[in-house]
């Protein structure tokens, strides 16, 4: 598969390095774009604000790995904003965080997360989690058809 991107939203440089390593080890070769705070992630997705974002110029990511505790704009708000916009409504979002707080898990699902994975402390467990997430969402799971949700709705009307 070429041309697909994975968006990793992560502010901790160590977690970033280890996540990238885990992806590399599990032979996931899709391009990984890293945004280090929630505002940058929204900018990347929508090109809001000063307009130097990528907006529609780049394809939307095939998968988003989202930390919750982020500078500027938090992960839940990123998720909420994404789900309110039909361009990003259906992109699979896996919340990848240290938190095991029930409220965080509930809020993530309420805001439309597709999965919630708590980062294990042990790196080999963490790497296995990243591998499993990638394998499921990029290989096993059928993505939203390329024609997008609009064409399907149109199909229903016929």
């Amino acid at each position, binding site marked *: 598969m070429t041309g697909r991107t994975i968006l990793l939203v992560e502010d*901790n440089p*160590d*977690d970033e390095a*280890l996540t990238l*390593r885990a992806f590399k080890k599990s032979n996931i070769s899709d391009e990984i774009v890293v945004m280090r705070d929630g505002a940058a992630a929204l900018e990347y997705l929508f090109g809001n604000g000063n307009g130097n974002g990528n907006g529609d110029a780049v394809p939307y990511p095939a998968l988003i790995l989202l930390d919750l505790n982020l500078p500027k704009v938090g992960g839940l708000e990123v998720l909420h904003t994404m789900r309110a916009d039909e361009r990003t409504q259906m992109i699979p979002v896996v919340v990848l965080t*240290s*938190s*095991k707080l029930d409220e965080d898990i509930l809020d993530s699902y309420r805001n439309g997360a597709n999965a919630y994975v708590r*980062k*294990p*402390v*042990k*790196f*080999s467990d*963490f790497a296995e989690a990243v591998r499993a997430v990638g394998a499921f969402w990029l290989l096993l799971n059928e993505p939203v058809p390329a024609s997008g949700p609009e064409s399907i709705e149109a199909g229903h009307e016929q």
Partner: protein
Amino acid sequence: MIQLGALSDGTFAALVEEAPDAMVCIAADGRIVLVNAEAERLFGYERTELIGQPVEILVPDAARAGHPGHRAGYIASPRHRPMGVGLPLAGRRRDASAFPAEISLSAIGTDEGILVAAAIRDVTDRLRLKDLERASQGLESFIYSVSHDLRAPLRALSGYSEVLLEDFGEVLGEEGRGHAERIVAVSEQMGQQIDYLLQYSRVSRAELHLQPVDLGEEAARIAEEIQRREPGRRVSFAIEQPVKALADRRLIRTVLENLIDNAWKFTSGRDDASIEFGTAPSGDAAMCCYVRDNGAGFDSAYAGKLFLPFQRLHAARDFPGTGTGLASVRQIAERHGGRVWAEGAVGAGATFYFTLDGKECT
């Protein structure tokens, strides 16, 4: 309804005398005319020392100068009310020390003019409790956020050690790899300890959802699960059913899981392992349960340490664990108003008891 006429003066006097609050009665000129036993105790005076004295003798130095004015104001428009609404009030003991007080006032018209009665309550304990509650809430959220934040560097510690092992294993040599492996193992252990702190803080803060639970049924389910995880082991379970209790289902399940997991773990050396869950006679206590096994047991000299977090009585290589299970058991039993204790001897098995309402088995 008590008919006032039916009570003699002596009964009234006795009622005032035995009142749980300190009572001090003053005349219009501010002189003390009556005190009760609690007032003597609270302020540290004999009543003969107080009668006839201005009430300001009981007012802390800082407030004394203004007091006659307040007193006159009250006598001008007397009604039943708490004193100094919204202000921190204090009383002054004989030794000049002050204590925080709650005071309510009422006025009584008599032939000799108006009498003002003050009921005074020492609120030191209540304030201290409030402070304690505030401090403990602060501490719990501190524990939560710290333990949460500690996980990130720990993950890096463990992660980079594994990177060293994988990418630089040859350079490190056997001894170096051994050290890196220790870092990985110890990080993981610390991760479990941090998880315990998180859980501890969560259980302290959680609201209890009390509902009728059949502990026997829960225990049987746990036994089934654990047996399924390790089908190779032969352990005979004897589980009393039903054992109905009022408890928080999720938390009490954690108690049973920890106790049964322990029993399972510490009987691993036996071919005739048996684990028993039942209730003991408990006098008037609502519930006293136990989990008994015929496993490795423990030295009863260290029984007190069993329920402390991160304490282990067995070497990790014999029986792995983080030493947090029994600490959780204790915390949860105590949140239910109960307690825990254990009986056992080395090589002779162990019995762990818990109650859910604070009373011990008989």
